[in-house]
């Protein structure tokens, strides 16, 4: 059975054309899936729908067989415990006035999870490659890559089964980017990862499955290696041909 099922979802704002049209996705437990698209492809809208922040105009999204519905408060609370997100910009996603302990423990507080929060935060920090001794420090004391590690620690501290990442490495320098990709890859062994990015190279390095979005439609999806080796849709072909490569 799929963990997250997107069934024929359409979404649009009242004024204009649809942002997503007939999107269907099947995300199984343990999958590492990359949603790739350029500006206007609808990838961020799809992510909002997956978080349950917005409801589709038609079609449905279900988690473990139950449809996401903001009116079903009890289920949404349980869902929020299972799903966490990492954002693009580690400079704006961490509260500058809070300590690392307070930032990383935030999901534990808001989800009212019992236990020794300090201990759980220290374990999360270790699993993202940070020293547990940084608990009392503030975001400005860290580099971009370290901040993104703190954001990832916050996302995994409550033990989610699904991790969403929205352009989570796009704001990072190349040498930092590769290390965060390696960290996410390592974490994806124990949870499902949905990684949204415009960068097909990063998705290729991280995700076993890939979904290519163009103007609100899925043009191609499947096993990453297969699609990269033999892209069928003209848009996927153009996207791949556009990626600059190192000289041979």
């Amino acid at each position, binding site marked *: 059975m799929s963990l997250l099922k997107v069934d024929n979802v359409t979404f649009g704002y009242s004024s204009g054309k649809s942002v997503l049209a007939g999107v269907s996705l099947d995300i199984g437990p343990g999958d590492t899936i990359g949603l790739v698209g350029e500006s206007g492809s609808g990838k961020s809208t799809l992510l909002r729908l997956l978080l349950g922040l917005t409801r589709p105009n038609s079609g449905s999204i279900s988690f473990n067989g139950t449809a996401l519905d903001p009116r079903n408060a009890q289920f949404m609370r349980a869902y929020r415990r299972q799903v966490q997100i990492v954002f693009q910009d580690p400079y704006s996603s961490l509260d500058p006035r809070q300590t690392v302990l307070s930032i990383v423990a935030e999901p534990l507080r808001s989800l009212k999870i019992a236990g020794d929060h300090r201990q759980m935060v220290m374990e999360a920090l270790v699993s993202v490659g940070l020293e547990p001794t940084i608990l009392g420090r503030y975001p400005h004391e860290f580099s971009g890559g370290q901040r993104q590690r703190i954001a990832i620690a916050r996302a995994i501290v409550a033990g989610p089964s699904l991790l969403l990442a929205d352009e989570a490495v796009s704001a990072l320098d190349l*040498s930092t980017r590769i290390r965060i990709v390696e960290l996410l890859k390592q974490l994806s062994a124990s949870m499902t990862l949905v990684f949204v990015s415009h960068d097909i190279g990063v998705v290729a390095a991280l995700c076993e499955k890939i979904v290519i979005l163009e103007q609100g439609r899925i043009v191609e999806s499947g096993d990453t290696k297969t699609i990269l080796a033999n892209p069928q849709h003209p848009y996927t072909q153009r996207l791949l*041909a556009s990626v600059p490569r190192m000289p041979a």
Partner: protein
Amino acid sequence: MSALLDIKQLSLHTENVRLLYGVDLTIAPGERVGLIGESGSGKSLTAMAATGLLPTNIRASGSITLAGRPVIDASEHQLNLLRGTAAAVVFQEPLTALDPLMRIGRQIAEPLRRRAARDGQRLSGTELDAAVLAMMGDVALPDPERIARAYPHEISGGQRQRVAIAMALACKPSLLIADEPTTALDVTTQAEILCLLDRLVRERNMALLFISHDLPVVAGIVDRVVVLRQGEVVEAGPVHQVFAHPQHAYTQSLVAAAHAFDTALGAVP
């Protein structure tokens, strides 16, 4: 042949922070040089220094010669004569580089008019309009008449960057400085803009200083690279040599990271 841009032992300081230290960078007429570095390496500052656009709280030492004239400590009047004719800049984010309240046609007309005046010509309104449309044609903007009447927010990011390139080229500079010109663009648009820049620089026999953190992008457009790290040059040389046999550990880590993403993508389809 003497260098078009000659930066020798350039150091930049604020009150208490060292930003750039002992940077050497030379560009010959028609040469294409890439300046590579990660955030905070000082690559944009180097470009700003070359055109005399440094903030007033930054002190410079060493020497910068652009088209045979000194840049450091030059007066604003002397610098204005150099800017445009000797060097023009295309910035990363075309939306902030363009005036949001001015129609595209007028923004391109301004540098064209100034350049003509500098050459001792006075263009009539009709001549200027024709020159604007010709310039827009050169950067392959579709439907030039419509876009000339549009405001920056009414056109796409790629089209805005074409406008910014048209404005830089309108100055007929000997050196085009492009500071991360495609970083804000989608990858398919980036490919088009790189192709355009490459063609225009060759056709007009301009020199190019291409600033970027993206190694494969740089590899495709320049002959020589200079690698900056924390304000110091760690390595410089022909692009193929530096990328194939990086000597400094830092360059090696950058090249390895770039190759890792390339390898994941597999062969070009």
